């Protein structure tokens, strides 16, 4: 039965599924990368995603405008980021704990709003798969790469863009400086607070879009706790990717491809217990994390609040 897995149908299926599954991880993990490079660990990603997912879904359903839904997700995610920034930068709260607090807030609030405003699971007409002339018709490659919706493409475009901002702009330099050595950055006149605010709010906005990519592009429904912990995997992917957008992309693709593979393994009737199959992406990710990523060092000031000495 194993040889059944090596057909083109299966290969095309795995790659296309993997590319779709990786989309929300990419938005959320790239956003989290910015926050962590500036020295702030945000564990509230999943909550931001849930609120973003709900905001996008509700606005898209009410106003029949998907881009307005995206805007709503960006605003809601940004506001969550703003609150997180205030708590971690101004109040200097312990980052891990306050992140969990924000996660629970997002989980509960999205559920509450869903109950009060919608009350039942509904569907929305989300972003359609794009048909690109010629490209979509290429055998195999067309099915894998060129029949996805716009938010999938944007997620992959975000990776080089994030790399560029992080490594080739003054802004990126400031973010990295603040995350590595806030005292030095401060003495050179960089506002640590402002840079961290920027990074955390940007992260929140991208988490909001990550949620929206699920609720109005990939799944087109909203349900309580629909991310089911996806935001935490995104945080793990930032570590996995060594705090680099390219590494995050690799991690997200690896995790998602193996997840797609295990679904096919089950469908093809290969005799392994389903419990082992669903474990595969997690086990593999941990293995790679342990074996290959050890040499990468996290930003020195990660999770450390900055207080200016006077």
């Amino acid at each position, binding site marked *: 039965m194993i040889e059944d897995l090596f057909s083109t149908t299966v290969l095309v299926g795995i790659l296309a599924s993997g590319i779709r599954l990786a989309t929300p991880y990419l938005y959320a993990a790239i956003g989290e990368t910015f926050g962590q490079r500036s020295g702030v660990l945000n564990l509230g990603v999943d909550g931001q995603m849930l609120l973003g997912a709900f905001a996008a879904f509700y606005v898209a359903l009410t106003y029949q405008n998907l881009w307005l839904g995206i805007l709503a997700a960006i605003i809601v995610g940004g506001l969550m980021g703003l609150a997180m920034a205030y*708590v971690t930068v101004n*109040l200097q709260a312990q980052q891990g704990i306050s992140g969990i607090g924000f996660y629970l807030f997002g*989980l509960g609030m999205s559920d509450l709003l869903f109950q009060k405003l919608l009350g039942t699971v509904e569907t929305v007409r989300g972003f359609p798969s794009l048909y690109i002339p010629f490209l979509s018709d290429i055998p195999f490659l067309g099915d894998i790469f060129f029949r996805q919706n716009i938010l999938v493409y944007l997620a992959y475009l975000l990776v080089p863009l994030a790399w560029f901002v992080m490594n080739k702009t003054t802004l990126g330099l400031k973010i990295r400086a603040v995350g590595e050595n806030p005292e030095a950055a401060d003495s050179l006149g960089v506002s640590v607070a402002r840079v961290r605010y920027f990074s955390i709010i940007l992260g929140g906005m991208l988490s909001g879009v990550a949620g929206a990519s699920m609720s109005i592009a990939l799944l087109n429904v909203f349900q309580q706790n629909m991310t089911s912990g996806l935001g935490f995997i995104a945080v793990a992917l930032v570590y996995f990717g060594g705090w680099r957008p390219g590494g995050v992309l690799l991690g997200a693709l690896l995790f998602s491809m193996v*997840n797609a593979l295990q679904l096919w393994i089950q*469908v093809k009737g290969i005799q392994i217990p389903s419990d082992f199959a669903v474990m595969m992406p997690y086990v593999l990710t941990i293995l790679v994390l342990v074996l290959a990523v050890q040499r990468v060092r996290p930003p020195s000031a990660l999770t450390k609040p900055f207080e200016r000495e006077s």
Partner: protein
Amino acid sequence: MKTSAWMKISILFVLFTFLLAACATTPATPEVSEPETTDEPVVEEPFRVALIMPSAINDLAFSQSIYDALVKIQTEMGGESGFQFVYSENMFVVDDAAAAIRDYASQGYDLVIAHGSQYGSSLREIAPDFPEVSFAHGTTVDTFVDEGITNVFAYEAASDQGGYVNGVMAGLLTESNVVGVVGPIETGDAKLYIDGFKAGVMASNPEAQVNINYTGSFSDVALASEAANTHIGAGADILTGTAQMVVGAIGVAEERGVLWFGTQSSQTSLAPSIVVANQVYDWTVVLRDIISLIKEGTLGGKAYAITLANDGLVMDFNPQYTLPESVGQAAAEAIQGIESGSITTLP
């Protein structure tokens, strides 16, 4: 010092967000369905029920099925004056659920329903402390009566029966001879449903191939949707699945024009063009009997199963989908055969 004041404020803030989250998912003050006090002198005390469930009352699946049944019972028993119920939803953390069960029991409810097999071990500990309160849980057959606990009822769904009927129809409707099943975790009524479904397909179309994948979760909507994509990629033209995560799979089925069979609650409203039929759980028959037993003074010890024969399982056909007459006929025959016992739904 300045920082310690800030620390306090931030801790307070975090606690506050915890509280908000807790309020939303697990109402501290339980939501009473229409809290209305009657002015007329009460002749008989209303029967009071508390319900704890793992997901939301509108999940179009497992939790909704019991909530709908309680609403129905309330109407039957003359509304608020005869029957009152409160509920806690989204109790996916078993420890929280155990606290809620204990809470409700100490508040003197006549019946506390723990709607999920995962609550069983908590109930085994709590029930002996409240001998005057009756408990019910499911889906399971274990009433703990052999352990000397006499105030627990158990209920389960013979979901393999409706699964079989759905399977018979799926076997006849498939043109590609490939049928896909999006499963959650290989356990309980999900496994029963899937086994029954497969047996049904095999009975009506031995040529067909039934592909099954489990996502390892009841709530992972994204993976459920990709599981559906995988089935369609493998040639399936008919899908089914169980648990609240299937809303993701139904969306994919609709987008790609593949038929869907539902279970637990009616999922027709999500995709009216592709849902053929649903097996709907109707727990009223169980609840009715439990309530009358409690009123007579029996607080537990009985295990129930909802079946097609006792109308606890209802086949709900989507009126907007035109089922070929021969297929409808085959479904009717399957229902009859299961009710009379001439068909066995599990291999």
